[in-house]
């Protein structure tokens, strides 16, 4: 049987290079037993979705600290749904003002984690919602 570990793709769309958070999360998820694919910096939404398809992931985590989240998060969701990634959860993190969160959720982002979130809360969220965890 195939590996039943939860597979998470972590990506940084957009131009900002603030990868402290995404790298800490990558390590925390790995330590929690998940398979983590980190795309590196400056991936276009197209690249993120294509990598998610190839890697057969259960969850996509996006990190943006530049303020471009309202443009780039919805784009990834839209392309992912077009590509048939319907049961893949897409969550985000970064400097995201509270008032943007409802709109992002309407547009299909499943959860937003803002600064101060505990690593174990993110782990618990993925365990609860990821496809492979539920099957």
């Amino acid at each position, binding site marked *: 049987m195939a590996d039943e570990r939860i597979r998470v793709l972590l990506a940084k769309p957009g*131009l900002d*290079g603030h990868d402290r958070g995404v*790298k*800490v999360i990558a390590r*925390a998820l790995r330590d929690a037993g998940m398979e983590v694919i980190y795309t590196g910096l400056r991936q276009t939404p197209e690249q993120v979705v294509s990598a998610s398809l190839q890697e057969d992931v259960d969850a996509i985590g996006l990190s943006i600290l530049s303020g*471009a989240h309202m*443009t780039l998060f919805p784009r990834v969701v839209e392309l992912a749904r077009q590509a048939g990634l319907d049961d893949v959860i897409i969550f985000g993190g970064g400097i995201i*003002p509270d008032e943007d969160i409802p709109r992002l959720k309407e547009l299909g982002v499943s959860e937003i984690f803002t*600064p101060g979130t*505990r690593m174990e809360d993110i782990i618990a969220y993925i365990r609860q919602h990821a496809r492979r965890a539920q099957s």
Partner: protein
Amino acid sequence: MSATDVTNRLQEAEMEWEERTLKPVLKKTPESRQVFTTTSLAPVERLYTPNSLPDFDYETDLGFPGQPPYTRGIHATGYRGKLWTMRQFAGFGSAFDTNQRFKYLLEHGQTGLSTAFDLPTLMGYDSDHPFSEGEVGKCGVAISSLADMEVLFDGIPLEQVTTSMTINAPASMILAMFLVVAEKQGADWQRVGGTLQNDILKEYIAQKEWIYPPRQAMRLIVDTVEFCTKEAPKFNPISISGYHIREAGSTALQELAFTLRDGIEYVQYCVNHGLDVDDFAPRLSFFFNSHNDFFEEIAKYRAARRIWHKVMTERFGAKSPRSWALRFHTQTAGVSLTAQQPLNNIVRVAIQALAGVLGGTQSLHTDAYDEALALPSDEAALIALRTQQIIAHESGAANVVDPLGGSYFIEKLTREMEEGAFDYFRKIDDFGGMIEAIDAGFPQREIQDSAYHYQLAVDSKDKIIVGLNDYVMKDEPVQIPLLQIDESTAKLQAERLAKLRAERDGKRVAETLKALTDGARQGHNTMYLLLDCVRAYATLGEMCDALRPVYGEYQEPAF
């Protein structure tokens, strides 16, 4: 009584104190934890005494301010002659928006300017490049050509106000734009002062905004140093920065060590190019973070000066005292600010700023309390500036030179910082230099490890962050006004760029860009060629593109 006798007597006295006074107290009321640590998770002792500093020698370890080894500061009178420069980092939206903010800050008593550019500008893309979508004007000002730079500094006399520009990969292009604006104002380049960040090494290590590979990028930096030494001698061509290294998660020691080792790399490259160290070293400046742990930060700044003096004299044989004195800018730690109970950040910033002042900073940026949420609003930016003014005029911190000098704790920490930094220098030298260490991923991995351990300490409440993992409020009452940046800047920039491309002399642009490519290939100093491109209104993106065929592009290795 001889010195040895005094030392022995003090050691006995301390042991006696431990036995008679300390032990009964510990028995009755144990301490709240086994080990106490700094923000960097470095352990600290209960008490420091002269016994903590064996072989301490006032003259060689500290000396007097304005004299080697500069532990007590680079000015004999500290801040009594001149306060630090209050230099608030600002930039958002279009050049029109940021020009207004600059004028607002100058009207309220700020004494120097500091420019934040948006991400497309930092990466060398024009505002209308596809990669710029969603990013234009968001975390800084959008500058795509001389036309934008003219607006940015409209009505600001560049001969009188010094300007700092936080730009790295395309630093020489932005410097060229700045100097052409100065030229058009009728200012004399020999008298224009300011600072270019132009520190590409910490980009590969921490901030990750690069274009070209390290060794090629170093050629541009050597060009700017050579150029400024000759043509703009009051301009600091590099601000060697630990700020971003710290923000990426390093410890205070790693910030200090990697930053100064970057400095060594720049000096070495310039010397290898044939420059005389004393011709350019006096214009190198540094930029450090000020984080939460008050004493650790102060020790870091004092150690930085002492180390740099040693490096410049022993490693590079610099003869001018101006080359030996490390000057630095400080910014309070953005990463320490919390989105929760944001007004608490005003207090954090005040403590961090005070550490910078007690550490002897030459200029200071205080973060605005709303920066964990957005770019600063006018109100938040003003409180940040007022914080510095209160420290300067009300706290008494500026009255005395190096007021913490001689504190057993501070002197011990300073010594540990110095020793730790030299240990890191040896490791990096063993790789063959900083660029080789970066190739191997050494500083990057060190920082990632520290960031992860810090997060574990916060998550486990080993480190308490007020309002974040303790003293949490369920329904926070405070609503603060946030600065909103919409997409109108992107639209404005696209229109301005279209107009510029239609109206400028296209033939002249093409010729100057070709001269840039050819000149770079032949190893000519690129600054003079860039100035010609800028005068012809070539865009930032075009200039960066013209060098790609010569230098190539950097791809980050996976770590």
